[in-house]
């Protein structure tokens, strides 16, 4: 059991090294990556934008409710922006990305393997890693930070809608307090770094699970489930590690 786990981990490490080494084709034929960007990025837009808007609006209500107790409801902008940019933006969009795009990647590659399309490619001397796996990896790697940024921007807009338009927090102090509290390097850049790391982890797990899936209907469905579970746990675990490095409280 343990032996199996270590074995799979070793295979996963070899798999990602192989993917990175065979990425040349993805950049020479960038059309491949663009095609995958459409499936992983553009088709995830709706769920990311709508969730971002609602998360921001809920933050607006909850934050106002709590801050009102201390008479500091003008700090609502700070609360909404900091919690979105630092934590919720990267983490929630990564969880959504894992279930929306990660599972699709696993199922697609798993089915390709089950129907022996990958073997057929090898027969034709086309390397499936550089033709199928690497473009998907780079597409996920590129789209994740962009999706997280859109999630955060949408969330801030949602917080603005509820806080300023609906409840009536002063618009000037909402934006100015936000701008003086949110630091570009400390907050926004760290959020982007987080989402880049999450994008790497999710696409790695999704592609590996698909590539490693037993070539049966059952195997592919099991691999898809494992992708969502493992990558969600990986995102939350990595978030803890990254946060403890970035915000040590010093």
């Amino acid at each position, binding site marked *: 059991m343990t032996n199996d786990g270590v074995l799979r981990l070793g295979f996963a490490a070899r798999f990602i090294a192989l993917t990175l080494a065979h990425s040349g084709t993805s950049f020479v034929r960038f059309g491949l990556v*663009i*095609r995958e*960007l*459409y499936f992983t*990025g*553009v088709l995830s*837009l709706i769920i990311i934008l709508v969730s971002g808007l609602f998360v921001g609006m809920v933050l607006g209500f909850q934050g106002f409710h709590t801050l009102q107790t201390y008479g500091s409801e003008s700090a609502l902008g700070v609360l909404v*922006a900091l919690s979105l*940019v630092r934590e919720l933006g990267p983490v929630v969009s990564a969880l959504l990305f894992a279930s929306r795009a990660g599972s699709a990647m696993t199922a697609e590659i798993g089915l390709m393997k089950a129907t022996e399309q990958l073997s057929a490619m090898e027969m034709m001397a086309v390397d499936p890693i550089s033709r199928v796996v690497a473009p998907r990896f780079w597409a996920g790697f*590129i*789209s994740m*930070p*962009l*999706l997280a*940024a*859109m999630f*955060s*921007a*949408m969330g*801030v807009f949602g917080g603005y809608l509820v806080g300023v338009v609906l409840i009536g927090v002063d618009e000037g102090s909402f*934006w100015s307090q*936000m*701008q*003086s509290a*949110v*630091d*570009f*390097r*400390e*907050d*926004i850049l760290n959020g*982007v770094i987080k989402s880049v790391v999450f994008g790497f982890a999710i696409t790695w797990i999704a592609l590996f699970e698909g590539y490693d899936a037993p070539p049966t209907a059952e195997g592919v469905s099991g691999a898809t489930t494992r992708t969502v579970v493992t990558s969600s746990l990986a995102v939350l675990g990595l978030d803890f590690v990254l946060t403890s490095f970035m915000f040590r409280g010093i």
Partner: protein
Amino acid sequence: MLDLWVGIFVCAGIGALLILALKVGNMGGLGGSDTYRLYARFDNIGGLKPRAPVKSAGVVVGRVEEVTFDNDRFVAKVAMNIETRYKFPKDTTASVLTSGLLGEQYIGLEGGGDTAVLAEGDSLKLTQSAVVLEKLIGQFLYSKAAEGGDDKK
């Protein structure tokens, strides 16, 4: 068609990043303008942190660059970057203040009457430390005790 959508997607993503940087964050604020370095030594800086604002008359004129411990004099040494367009006289007082009751700490500069102005690398001679609540309470208790002693005489 596919390319168009991907193009829109990438543009929207970069646009969102720009919005975050410019509208939500302050993009460094003073990052672009020229600054000069001033030093000030405080007996106690309280909770002052790097990047805290330096204000004069409530206007942000610079930022704290770093806070170090001066091991020769056993005091805190604060380096701050002041925007070049603001000049302060030599006898400017620097004090560690708190914005609001529970707010963050910042450095307040109060100009004096000297005609010579501070330049790059100068140190402020007159400083006022942060108010430490424990010391304040200690002094209060001490003065109370002293009063009690007087009454008995």
